[in-house]
């Protein structure tokens, strides 16, 4: 029974990892063909850094993810603090404003933002994509911070005020430390969502400004160059190393 269970889990994981393995193997293929193995080479890794398209897409993807994560973390954390301090009725209005974008399908979010930008005669490009990313990231940050605020002692903020702290000082020294895990989770979530987004970026940018997803989409039909495979293999390994080191360090500090 135990072997059966493990076998089942193994099969599911094989299903999840098979395409990734294929991608990584292809990135070392000397030929262009997806199907034929023409020998091992680092050719695509070398060409990667010479390709202006891919380098720009990488730049756009990473900077937008970083900027959007930073902006949405600030706006979302402030929002959570504000919402938590509100009386019942405005609070439920704000929660509705938060839940609308979460239940909207990506394609509707993307299209509605596209309509907004065209309607207000704003040329779509890098900045509109950034605005769109902040828009879909922020509710996630607010929702990861809110539970931490609910958990914390309501009176510690008031106690700080009674002891003579200004509201700003109390915010920085009492509230922020208590909600820090929620803020970090929210920031990471925002970064990941932004890094992987395709649908919303697709509708809110111009063909001149591509992120990795839209670049892959436009290439998917004529056949994706193995350079893109090489890049994602690199990013994948980088994230993996990051995860392992972070895990290693936290486990060492807890021990």
């Amino acid at each position, binding site marked *: 029974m135990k072997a059966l269970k493990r076998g089942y*889990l193994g099969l599911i*994981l094989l299903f*999840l990892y098979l*395409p*990734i393995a*294929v*991608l990584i193997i*292809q990135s070392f293929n000397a030929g262009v063909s997806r*199907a034929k193995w023409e020998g091992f080479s680092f050719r695509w890794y070398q060409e990667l850094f010479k390709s202006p398209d891919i380098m720009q897409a990488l730049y756009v993807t990473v900077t937008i993810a970083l900027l959007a994560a930073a902006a949405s973390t*600030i*706006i979302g954390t*402030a*929002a*959570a*603090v*504000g*919402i*938590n*301090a*509100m009386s019942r009725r*405005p609070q439920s209005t*704000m929660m509705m*404003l938060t839940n609308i974008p979460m*239940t909207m*399908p*990506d*394609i*509707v*979010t993307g*299209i*509605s933002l596209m*309509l*907004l930008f065209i309607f207000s005669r*704003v040329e779509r490009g*890098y*900045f509109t994509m950034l*605005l769109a990313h902040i*828009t879909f990231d922020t*509710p*996630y940050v607010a929702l*990861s911070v809110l539970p931490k605020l609910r958990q914390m002692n309501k009176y510690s903020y008031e106690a700080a005020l009674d002891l003579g702290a*200004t*509201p*700003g000082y109390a*915010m920085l020294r009492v509230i922020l430390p208590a909600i820090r895990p929620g803020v970090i989770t929210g920031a990471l*979530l925002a970064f*990941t969502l932004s890094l*992987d987004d*395709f*649908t919303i970026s697709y509708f809110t940018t111009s063909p001149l*400004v591509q992120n*990795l*997803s839209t670049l892959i989409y436009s290439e*998917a039909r004529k056949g994706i160059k193995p350079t893109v*495979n090489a890049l*994602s293999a690199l*990013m*994948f390994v980088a*994230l993996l190393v990051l*995860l392992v080191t972070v895990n290693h360090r936290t486990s060492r500090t807890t021990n």
Partner: protein
Amino acid sequence: MNNLAIPVWGYWLMGLCLAGFVWMLVYSLKKYRGMHRSLYAWPYGLWMVVFTVIPLLLIGYYAFTDKLGNFTLENFANFWDSNRSMKRELMVQGFDPAALGMDARGTVNVSTLVYSLWMALICTLVSLVLGYPTALIMADRSFKMGATIVVLFVIPMWMNFLLRTVAWMSLLEDSGLINSLLKLLGFSKVQLMYNSQAVLLGMIYNFLPFMVFPIYNALNKQDQRWSEAAMDLGANKWTTFWKVTFPISMPGIISGITMVFMPSVTTFFIPRVLGGGNTEMFGDLIERTFLTADDWNVGSALSLIMMVLILFSLGLLRRVDPEGEGGSMI
């Protein structure tokens, strides 16, 4: 990188936001107790109104108007019969569509919607059937590696989902890995790509984790002593599962169904790559109506219909799970 420049009004907007925050900070740093903390939510509220509510209202506006901006319900009628505008054009020019044999109803919109719902339903069911046992095994107390497996489920999501979907092409193609293996074993070639099954496979591949996580979370919260108590009171394994474990996992199932069904109905990349254009789904239809046919009015009407459908199904699910555990996975 010239086209990456931020426009002038962008600097103005950013400056304004920054000034707002600085103002708030200065205001609160001063010893002024009147500043209520609820003010902190204002930038967010303003942002959400400008970038969520107004865009939604725009979709509503385009859905209920024609090209000239006059009120009309024609766009919704077009959903039922996509040949409507062509037939009207013929009538205006003095032809009788029926006499020309062109009075058939254009069913493409309705049939695409039905097809999408059907595909999403199958995808959700298969994900549930595959995902529930997975979550059950992972949450088992005697199985120590549950948390590790969760990480193993998350890691693939770091690789761009479009790329992972394209990778399936290399596996399923006529000259792909699976067919080469079959040939090696002496079987004949199988057509694996460009059909509904391939699209389903891609959807299940992408959305399966969203079924496993909420169920795993719900099961993990369960107090192990409950099932032990049930066993002590004489229930067998099967009864314990149906009377104790399964009801506890119900909120997880509901939120898993929501998180798989919604993106499945609206997906528009997977059918295009793995279905090769034979399997258009509702997301593709909306994208095509907006960007290829350039018809914002009909496209908006289609988006609204989809939104209403999704809200309706969410409402139904809420009835099953009134405590609103849905989305608790985040």
